[in-house]
């Protein structure tokens, strides 16, 4: 099995990210699976930037830890990432900048000089570096040339020619200056599966369009802004409207307005924006108007660390409201799932006429992964239940009590369908009503819908050992790292079962109960300080689960999952009572 991790570090604005992106596409076009990860400063120009790509001929589950190859554009990149090279790895460095030492092989490539000689300017260093990388990795130059053409073709032949020259210069340098380390070669392989490379943000945007989203309202915020940009560019092609609103409150207000008028609508934000949307989430629940809200979580609280990842908005997503405002919360586990689960998000919102929150995070939003060419028909699209002609003729009742709690929703323009949606407590017909009986009945109706949603199947994924004493539960972007950690544990002789929960709230109880009864100890793993999901689990199932938390602004590493499993297996880690604060 080939499995390689290439990390590229340099100054923001030097082309570290674009070099990494092109390398990623080259891997994908050569039919390898990739998984990328990036960090960048909160500033636009300057500050350290890092891009890494892990590629393999087997599925890649996580970003990986130690680098097989580290490419540094400057000395600072070495200072920051030098300790992440494998002891037997390869360091590509710029001899004009510094002279590194280590157990790894130090391979000097005068990137600046080559770029100046060939391209006659400092720009183009990233493409030279790409040429160096691709030669080291044994990729075909033809494939890379084609990619450069695709990427720069719009800018004209001159630009294409310059870039191909830069690419070849890097490629030739490696040919003339051999390195010693024996690395796997990534020549293109034949594969029946056509692959695409997409980030979580891109995948969920396409998923939303294919689910029928035709109105998007949003306000820029890292790391969700690219969803707004994607929609601005592409939604009109499908007849949809996009508004960059004046704030997150108006974003969700307009989404709910558009949905009231009959359009499938969504917004996307990050923690600070979600906090502003809380009141309107209650309105959506109360007036039973479908809407989809994406929260690409970042480190909080307050402004926190805007470019760093975290799963800290769980409590806000699940409980954020005054009063009881039942909603559904989904969390996709990888980029491919971002696409398909998004269709489910719209489906559930339409079916249960309630807000659906969609939790991703910075790492999932911005990392790219390969997955097979999408099949949009895989998840059939569901539309909200409309009143029948009979309903409309015989005195329409908007909030009619039904077994499922769901009542047919009339749209403006429907003869006989007139009603006023309101955030006030109301009767079945929608008239304000503050009696004890009505508030009890309607609270039940709204909660009933969510109870029905908890019985939906297909919102968990089990992985790992069929029989195991230790179970590990995760949600959202951590899926791959947990799976890889579970695989490592299996190799170390510890069978572990893993359940990834896609419907974070309400809990898909049947699946979870089955899982819980099959194991003796349960670890709940998540990327926040207090173990928010663990607390939800404990209170729902009255179980002494073991929290695994991490609050560094970074994703889990598979090795960390393994270490936790080993600690639990050896008995050194036991469940503790109360909140998980002391470690």
């Amino acid at each position, binding site marked *: 099995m080939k499995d390689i991790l290439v990390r590229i570090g340099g100054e923001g604005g030097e082309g570290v990210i674009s070099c990494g992106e092109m390398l990623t596409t080259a891997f*994908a*076009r050569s039919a390898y699976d990739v998984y990328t990860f990036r960090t960048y400063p909160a500033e636009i120009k300057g500050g350290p930037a890092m891009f890494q790509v892990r590629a393999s001929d087997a599925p890649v589950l996580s970003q990986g830890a130690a680098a097989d190859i580290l490419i540094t554009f400057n000395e600072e990149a070495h200072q920051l990432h030098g300790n992440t090279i494998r002891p037997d790895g390869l360091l590509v460095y710029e001899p004009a900048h510094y002279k590194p030492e280590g157990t790894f092989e130090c391979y000097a490539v005068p990137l600046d000089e080559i770029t100046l000689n060939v391209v006659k300017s400092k720009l183009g260093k990233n493409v030279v570096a790409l040429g160096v990388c691709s030669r080291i990795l044994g990729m075909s130059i033809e494939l890379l040339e084609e990619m450069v053409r695709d990427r720069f073709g719009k800018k004209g032949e001159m630009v294409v020619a310059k870039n191909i020259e830069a690419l070849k210069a890097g490629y030739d340098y490696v040919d003339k200056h051999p390195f010693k380390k024996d690395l796997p070669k990534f020549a293109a392989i034949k594969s029946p599966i*056509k*692959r*695409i*490379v*997409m980030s979580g943000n*891109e995948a969920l945007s*396409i998923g939303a*369009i*294919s689910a029928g989203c035709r*109105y998007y*309202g949003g306000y820029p915020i890292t790391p969700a802004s690219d969803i707004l940009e994607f929609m601005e560019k*592409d939604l*009109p*092609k*499908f*007849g*949809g*409207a996009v*508004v960059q*609103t*004046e*704030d997150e*409150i*108006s*974003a969700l*207000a*307009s*989404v*709910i*307005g*558009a*949905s*009231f*008028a*009959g*359009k499938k*609508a969504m917004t996307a934000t990050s923690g600070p924006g979600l906090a502003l949307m809380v*009141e*309107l989430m209650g*309105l959506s629940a109360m*007036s039973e108007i479908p809407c989809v809200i994406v929260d690409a979580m970042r480190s909080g609280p307050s402004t926190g660390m805007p470019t760093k990842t975290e799963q800290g908005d769980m409590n806000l997503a699940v409980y954020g409201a005054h009063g009881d405002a039942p909603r559904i919360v989904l969390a996709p586990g990888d980029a491919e799932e971002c696409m398909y689960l998004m269709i489910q998000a719209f489906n559930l919102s339409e079916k249960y006429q309630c807000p659906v929150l969609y939790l991703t995070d910075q790492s999932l939003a911005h990392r790219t992964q390969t997955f097979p*060419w*999408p099949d*949009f028909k895989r998840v059939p699209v569901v539309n909200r239940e409309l009143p029948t002609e009979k309903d409309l003729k015989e005195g329409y009742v908007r909030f009619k009590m039904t077994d499922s709690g769901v009542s047919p929703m009339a749209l*403006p*323009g429907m*003869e*006989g*369908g*007139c*009603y*006023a*949606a*309101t*955030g*006030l407590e109301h009767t079945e017909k929608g*008239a*304000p009503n503050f009696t004890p009986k009505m508030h009890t009945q309607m609270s039940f109706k709204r909660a009933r819908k969510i109870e029905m949603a908890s019985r939906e199947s297909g919102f968990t994924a089990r992985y790992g050992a069929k029989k195991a004493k230790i179970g590990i539960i995760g949600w959202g972007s951590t899926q791959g790292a947990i799976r890889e950690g579970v695989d490592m544990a299996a190799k170390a002789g510890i069978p572990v079962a893993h359940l990834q929960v896609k419907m974070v709230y309400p809990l898909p109880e049947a699946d979870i109960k089955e899982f819980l009864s099959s194991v003796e100890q349960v670890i709940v793993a998540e990327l926040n300080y207090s173990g928010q999901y663990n607390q939800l689990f404990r209170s729902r199932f009255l179980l002494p689960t073991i929290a695994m938390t991490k609050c560094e602004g970074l994703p889990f590493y598979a090795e960390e999952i393994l270490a936790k499993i080993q600690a639990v297996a050896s008995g050194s880690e036991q469940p503790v009572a109360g909140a998980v604060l002391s470690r």
Partner: protein
Amino acid sequence: MAHTTADYKSEVKITWCPGCGDFAVLNALYQALVTMDLDPKNVVVVSGIGCSGRLPIFVNSFGFHGVHGRVLPTAMGVKIGNPKLTVIAVGGDGDGLAIGGGHFPHAARRNIDITYIMLDNNIYGLTKGQASPTTAQSFQGKSSPYGVSEENLNPIALALAYDVSFVARAYSGQLKHLSDLMVDAVNHKGFSFVHTLSPCVVFNDTYKYYGKKVTPIAPYENTSSKMRALEMWQDKEHIFLGTFYKDETRQTFNERIRDIIGQFPRDDEKYFRELVNRYA
């Protein structure tokens, strides 16, 4: 068959205090809907929170009583969701100038084709008498026992400054004029604003004050002159009623959205293919 006011009255009992200015606004709206002969099913009245927020519930049309201060973005969503609808936003002075004050300029710069009727009673009525952004400084009430510390806002001045494309003022004491202005506002192509003086008889009864001050804008005034409009709102002697300013040459938000979408002939399959290919 033409509609009558009965067609627009809902079954819900009206909960405003006897004598409230909002009754006149509601009746003027019924009358305006009759004049325009709009089908109730194609009308959406959207509101925020406060006494005036209840208004959609009393109208037999589609209605949306949302959250405090967000009437304009909600109404925008409805209008974009279905551009064929006639969308009328209503809300109070607190709703539109305090908590929701940030949305007014953006509705104006979008020139979204909706009508915004601000029922200005110069007080927070439903919370029982606190000073609002339009309460006079001399007003002594529960939240301003020594008078109001802030100067009061002038909604007409704001609308003119934000370049709202239809700016008018009406008064609950003159129902026919109010109703006629509503018709003009709804018929206006673009964002229209009707500042409506609608006194609260319980907490800040301004009927007598307004009765003396209100003056119709002279018929010879040029509604395309913003300078003249600015002079009129600054007039200390009179509170002018009528249309201050009107510009129908501007493109509406829905037209701009239509133009953007119109660049792309419908072919979903092709666009999905192109989209996915971008990532191959």
